[in-house]
Structure formats: structure tokens, C-alpha cells
């Protein structure tokens, strides 16, 4: 599904070039549940953003579903982005001015889904995450775990093939974290959704079936657990 070849991401400072990612080669198959791990500043989030079309690599090739992303234009990228990818953030990133219902509905608006269909899709999602009663509340009226559930629901509403989660449980206590991870696992197993998460926690990484270790912008270990 995802094929990265020799991906470089750098920032040019006055005299030197600071590499955030250097020479990344990575293959991720459809149905994988991958955890990206590594110390702060290793380039985990940057890698996730590049995979999710939110950032561009400076060098290298990126194939998404065998499509060369590096040579797509903005509109085409946006099309892929909309149809295949859902994001979950550490800080939830719900829009404060929108209700739970409206936050979940938002991606559908950019996909130009019809009103009646939107309604049933959002209702479905609310039902699935047991947050029907909270649909008219605003994000600041919810607990962190509930907010992240809304975040996940929002990521799933467009039925993406790929979910990118940047430390989805970083701000949550352990019970809430487990709930979110269980949800991911279920999605991965039952619906075949590919999941790539960035995490610092071995416990969270253990929900997945593959771990990629990043160090100073390079992949140091691919699947350390499998080799054990």
C-alpha cells in the first residue's frame, strides 16, 4: 500500500542542511497495524505527515497504492487524502466552535456527501462509539478520552483505508488509552483498516503487529518484535 524509497526531508539553515529524515525506505502493506517509535526529534511525526500528504518530502519517491505521490499535483493529492486517509491527533484537534456532531460531520462536507446521507453516516458513527447523548455538546464540555473518541470517529467517518494517529493516547490516562487502542485493533482486524501510529509507549505499540524504530531521521529497526 505504501512504498517509500530514499525519502529525505531537510531544512536549509544558512550554512548547513539539517536533515529531519534521511534515506527512509519503508513498505507498509494493506491491513498492517504499524507503530512508529523513537526518541523525541527522531522525525516520527514528520514521517507520519509525509505519509498522510500533510507534508512533502524534499527527495525520494513515495508510492501510495502504486500511485507516485511525488509527481501528483495538489488537487490529486487532495483527492487521495480525502478518500483514503483519516487522522487522529495527540491533542485531539477538535474545532472548539463546532459541536460533536458537526466535528464528526466535517470531513464529509469536504467530500461533498449529500445531506441525508451525511446524517445517517454521522448517526452511525455516534452509535458505534456510544456518544449519541453527547452529540450537541461542544469539545470543551467533554473529557479527554471522550474528545479523542470523537477524534477517532471523525477520522473514520470517511471510511478511510488508512488511519494515521500521532500519539493518539499521549494525553490520556491508561484506561482511556486502552479503550482507544482496542478500537484501533478492532478496526484493523474486523474492517481491515491499515493503521500507522506514532507512540512512545511499548504497551501501546504492542497492540500493533509491527514496529518501526526511528533514530535521527533514519529507520534503525524494522519489526524488532518479529525478529525476536
Amino acid at each position, binding site marked *: 500500500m505504501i512504498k517509500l524509497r530514499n525519502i529525505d526531508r531537510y531544512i536549509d539553515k544558512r550554512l548547513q542542511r539539517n536533515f529531519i529524515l534521511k534515506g527512509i525506505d519503508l513498505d507498509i502493506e494493506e491491513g498492517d497495524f504499524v507503530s512508529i517509535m523513537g526518541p523525541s526529534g527522531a522525525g516520527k511525526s514528520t514521517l507520519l*505527515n509525509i505519509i498522510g500528504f*500533510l507534508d512533502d518530502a524534499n527527495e525520494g519517491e513515495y508510492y501510495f497504492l502504486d500511485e507516485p505521490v511525488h509527481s501528483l499535483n495538489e*488537487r490529486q493529492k487532495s483527492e487521495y487524502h480525502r478518500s483514503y486517509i483519516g*487522522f487522529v491527533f495527540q491533542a485531539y484537534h477538535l474545532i472548539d466552535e463546532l459541536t460533536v456532531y458537526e466535528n464528526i460531520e*466535517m470531513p464529509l462536507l469536504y467530500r461533498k456527501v449529500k445531506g441525508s446521507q451525511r446524517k445517517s453516516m454521522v448517526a452511525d458513527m455516534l452509535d458505534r462509539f456510544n456518544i449519541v447523548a453527547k452529540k450537541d455538546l461542544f469539545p470543551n464540555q467533554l473529557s479527554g478520552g471522550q474528545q479523542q473518541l470523537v477524534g477517532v470517529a471523525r477520522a473514520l467517518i470517511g471510511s478511510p483505508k488508512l488511519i494515521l494517529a500521532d500519539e493518539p493516547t499521549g494525553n490520556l490516562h491508561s484506561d482511556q488509552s486502552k479503550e482507544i487502542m482496542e478500537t484501533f485493533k478492532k478496526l484493523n482486524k474486523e474492517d481491515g483498516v491499515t493503521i500507522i501510529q506514532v507512540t512512545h509507549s511499548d504497551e501501546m505499540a504492542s497492540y500493533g503487529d509491527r514496529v518501526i524504530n526511528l533514530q535521527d531521521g533514519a529507520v534503525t529497526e524494522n519489526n524488532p518484535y518479529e525478529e525476536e
Partner: protein
Amino acid sequence: MFRNYIKIALRNLKKDKGYTLINLIGLSMGIGVCLIIFIFLQFHLSFDSFNKKAANIYRVTTSEQGPDGDFRSTGSMEGALAQTLLDEIPEVRASVRASRYGKTLITIGNENFYEENILRTDPSLFDIFTFPFSQGDPKTALSDKSNIVLTKSVAQKYFREQNPIGQEIVFNERNRYIVTGIVEDPPAQSHINFSMVINIPDSLSGRSIMDWNWLRSFHTYVLLDEQASPNDVEAKIPSILEGKMALGNAEFHLQSLTDIHLKSDLGWELFPERIFSINYIYLFSIVGIFILLIACINYVNLATARATTRLKEVGVRKAAGAQQGNLFWQFTGEILLLTFTSAVFSLGLVELLLPYVNKLMDLQLSSIVIWSPLFITGFISFIFLIGIISGTYPAFILSSFKPAEIFKGNGKLLTSEGLRKGLVVFQFSVSMILIISTIIIDQQLTYFQDKNLGLNTEQVLNISLESTKTRELGNVFLEKLANHSNIESVSASGDLPGNSGTTLYLYPFEDQELPMPARYMSIDPQFIKTMEMELIAGTNLTIPNTKSEQISVIVNETVVKEMGWKPDEAINQRLDRFVIIGVVKDFHFESLEQEIRPAVMAPLGDANPDYISARLSPSNISETMDWIRKEWDTVADSYPLQFTFMDDTFESLYRSEERLGILFTVFCIITIIIACLGLFGLMAFMATKRTKEIGIRKVLGASIVDIVTLLSKDFIKLVVLGFVIAIPIAWYATNQWLADFAYRIEVSVDIFAFTGISAILISFFTISWQAIKSALSNPVESLKSE
């Protein structure tokens, strides 16, 4: 999608009430002022266009070199010109003459009134111009010399419920007229204004009006064929008149009817109060645009400054699949919502304020124009344009952030800092230019009022003896006034300072052809005393006992100067046909816009006076006035008393400048309010953004003064820079305006210093409220939130 945008726009606007309010107030005021200026401009720009044939109506004017070498344009034509043009030039379909009959005594039944704005014209007036009749037939209404047509309001005033048609009106107790028609009042947008219309007589003083080369007193209008070119017609005129009249070096022009109101340069207009300077049209357009720009700048500044608070939303929406275009339109939608709401408020504002504007400016502006479908369409596009102008940049900035950078927390948040500073500088430059201009206009007007006129106009009552009968009674009445204890001095004269007056061309130099144009006034010996003029050489006039061939006159200093004499040397000198016996210190007899010209005052002799001037003692003026009215009634019977106070007459010379001054003051205040609103909003925002910094500084021991200085410093710098830019522009602009006045103030450094200091103070007060609030806040609170 659209509904979602509206929803989030509304919630955002509701959430940040201060921001919304600042923009709403600023934009409503800006758009409101623009609308009022638009109505004002529309009023002036569409003058005379109510005439159905306006496009083909022209006024004939000539420009001619006067004996003093200056070119003068005039619209006063010979009586026979209109008919000659009609007969000889095929393109001329109709022609009409018009002249204004001075203030006239009219008698209806047993009652006397004075009526102004009586128009003497030809029956073709109603064919060429569009003055619809409500009673009578326009074709026959003026068919006889004894016919008179009244306007509806005048008919109502004199005849009330009676049918005016067939009623008799007597002019000057001599000429009898029968009312044959009633027309609608001429619109406020007509350069021809009248209350009554009569025919031009065939002859005056026993000589036919149609004789060439003796009387030039008719404004002449022609109606051309639709296909005719005015230039061609213009070119034909001299050859047609060849041999009929002395052409001299006169050039003939056809002035388009719709050009008259704004572009007339004639020395004398039929209705000078209906003429306006196109320069003011430009001036008001510029001021309107600037006020609107300042309001738009507030939005741009606040929206870009606030962009930081919207970044997360941008990131999330982009992550959810939004393209830059989607976001651009979302943010542009927000400003459109704001501008359209402001537009609705501004329409209300116009309805509310227009009556005051009319009162202030003595105009009859109507908001009807802004409810026409054409205007509404234009207005909507205009509002859309404002939204786009002020919304595009912030929307572009906001929508162009990369989500990856936003989430990393290092988005370039202050990209528009430089632009924002520039715009604040611009706002304050414009505000200060307006303040300086306003102060200078005001000082110039005060200067006019306070300037030593060379005569004392306070408490001088001028009684105008309008009709032959009252003129005959003038001396009798003068005797009565002279004996009243509250009247200090009384005099009679044939003219007064402040009136338009008569100009004589004197030829004082024996060896030169060059004339000296001089104002001529006939006065009695008490005149100098009553006006409190100062005789600096020679003696006052005496009542001449014999009719000598030489006329003894008093001249003003300017005459003496132009002749190259000293005042004392002038005594007993000849001046054309006069002998100088006295010299008075220069006095102003015209507006201070004009330089003092030579003036010659000759004895009134035993001629009947046109004016009686009385200097009243300052105490009991109203009692004295009551007594004067009573005495007038016993002497003059049913003739109404016509009087003015001389200081009013002089003040009225500057009325248009005074109105300009008031309007500028209003604009100035509005601009300052809008600019300060913006500054206030920016400051509030900056203070919130620096809450943490302020907290840390306070914990480390910064005092309140330190914090206020820290927050205010940057903004005050911008205001100072704005001031520096404003100085040369304001200097140039005000000097241009002042150049029109012969007597003017010096633009002093004080004004600039005052403006600079007050602008800095105003802006300091505006921002210090926020600054002090943040400085006083508890650092524990602000640091806890992190």
C-alpha cells in the same frame, strides 16, 4: 457546506465579541459615511438632469478680455441674441432668455410683500426646460405680457384655498399681472430657481430690448437638434453676429446644461447659490474613500493578527481534506457576513443621519436614490468588493498555512507583522492629515471673523429700501432714527460693504489707456462715522450746496497706493472726473477671499438713499428693534421692513467655507474613532498574546509602568511615524486651499505640534486601557494557564 461556513462564522463572531464589534462599528461608520457622501455627490452630479431634454440644452457664454487685461466669462447676453440664433442657425430648435428680477414689492389685494427669485423669461422656457404645470397651459400661459406663472408653493402661500388662476398681482405698485398658470416648484437640483415667472418686456427706458449694443443682461439657452454638434454651432455664432453687434475679442461658447452646476466659471450667475465647485466633489470623494479604507484596514489588521487563534482550525480542516480554496472561501465568507451586516446597519445610519446632514449643510438630500434597484445592485457589488478587498489578504494568509507546521507549533505566525504596521501608519497619517486640515479651515474662518475689517460691523442695522416709494420715505425715517437715544448714529447710502456693488472703470492716468476698476459707493456725511471707518487724511464729505462740476470723493488707501501717493498727497488730487478730499483706511467691502480693491465714495447728495444704516447701542437691542419696527410701520404703512445686521451679511460670505469646516470636523472625528477602534483591537489582541510574557516579567519584578511602556512603545512609534508622513502632505494640501484666499493665516508649526501631540495622546489613551489591564493582572493566573 455553505451552511457550515455560515454557522462557524457566526459562532466565531459571537465568541470574540470585541473583535466583531470593532469591525461592525468601523465598517458601518465607514460604509455609512460613504453612502452619505455618495448621496451628496449624486445630488450635485445629476444637477439639471431632471430636464427631459437636458442632453441638448446649452447655455451661451462669452469670454472676453476686459479693459484691465483679465479674461472674464459671462453669460449675460444681448436681448436679440436668442431670436437671432433661432432664426439663423438651423440646428437651434428653440431658444430662451432669462434674467432675474431683483427683490420686488408685490401687492396682492391690500397686502404688500417682497418676493425674490422672480424670473423674466420667454414662453419657450417651458418648452425647453421641464417644469410641469399643475394648472394652466404651458403653451399659452405666458402669451401676454400681463401674464404671470407662479410655483405651487408661492400660489399656496399667497392664495391658500383660493383658485390662483385669474388672480391679480401688482409689481412695484405699477405693473399688473394676471395668474395664468401654476408650475411645480423647480427641483432643488435645478440651476434655475424661481417663485414667479413673467415675460421680458419689449422695451426698457423707452428703448427696445432687441436693439443691439446697449443692454446685455439675459442668460440665453438654446435647444439643439439631437444630431447637432455643439462645436459646429458654436463656430457659426461669430459670423452670424458680424455687423450686428460689436464683437471685440469675445469668444462664444456653448456650455452644456449639465455642466453648469459644477463647472461654471461665469463672473455672474442667475442663481449663484445653485453653483458648486467640482473641487469639493473631488475632495469629498477622496475623504470618503479614505474613511472606508481605514475601516477595511481595521479588519485586515485584526484578522491577520488573530490568525494565530484560527490556526488549529486550519490544520484540522486541512487534515480532514479541505483544500486551500475551501478555507479561503470560508474566511472570505466571514468578512462578507461582516460587511453585509455592516451594510444593513449603515443603511439605517444613513436614514438616521441624513436629516442632520441636510440641516447642517442646508441641503435637501434624499435617501430615495439609495433605494432604487440600480443603486441596490451597485451597492451589493460594492459591499462584495469591500469584503473581497479587506478579506482576501487575511483569508489567503490563513488558508495557506501548512498543517504539518501548525501541528508542530512553529507556523510562521507573524508573517504579516510588517504589513500590519504599515497599515497602522497609513491610518494615522490620514487621520492626522484630516485633523490638520480641519484645524486650518477652522483657524482661517476664525481669522475672517476676527480680522479687522477696517469698519465695525457689530450692531449695525442695515435697512434696505427696496421700492421707489420706500426710497422716497428714506430721509423721513432717517430723521426719526437719528433722534432715538439708543441709536448712536444713522446714515444713508446707495450701497453697502458686503453687497456685490457697482464697479467703475476710472481712467486716472493721463498718459495711459489702462483703467483702474474701482468700487463705487454713494454715501452721506454720517456714513464714515456710522461704519466706524477711519479717516486718515483730508476731510469728511459735506452736503454739497451747489451743483459743482467736480465731485468731491473719499477714496480708500488702495487707490492712493495704486496712484503712488502718500495719503496726504492725495488730497485735492484729481481722479478721473473726481477730486479727492479724504482718504479712509482700507476696509473690506467684499469677502476676504478677495484682495481689497480701490474704492471711491461719492456724496449721495439729494438722491434718495437705497439703504439706511443705524449703529445701535449694545444695550436693549430688542427694545430698540421693536421701536424701529413700530416707527417703520407708521412711516411706510404697509411696506414690509427689510433689514439685516451687517455682521450677519459678512458672515454669510463665508457660509460655504463654514459648512465645509463643520463637515470636515465630523469626518475627522469619525476617522479618529475608526482608527482608534482598530488600534484598541490590535492592542487587546497583543496584550492577550503576551499574557505569559507579562506574567513572567511581573514575577521577575517589572512594575506596572514598565509593563505599560513595554506594551505601548511599539504602537506609539507607529503613530509618530504616521505623523511624520502626514506633515508634508497636510502642509501642501492646506496651502493649496489657503492660496484661494487673499487674506489668510500663516500655517504655523503650532498646528502640527498640537495635532501630533493630541494624536499621540489619543492613541496612548486608547491602548493604555488594555495595557494597564494586562499590567494589573495577577501573574499567577496568567502562568497557570500554560
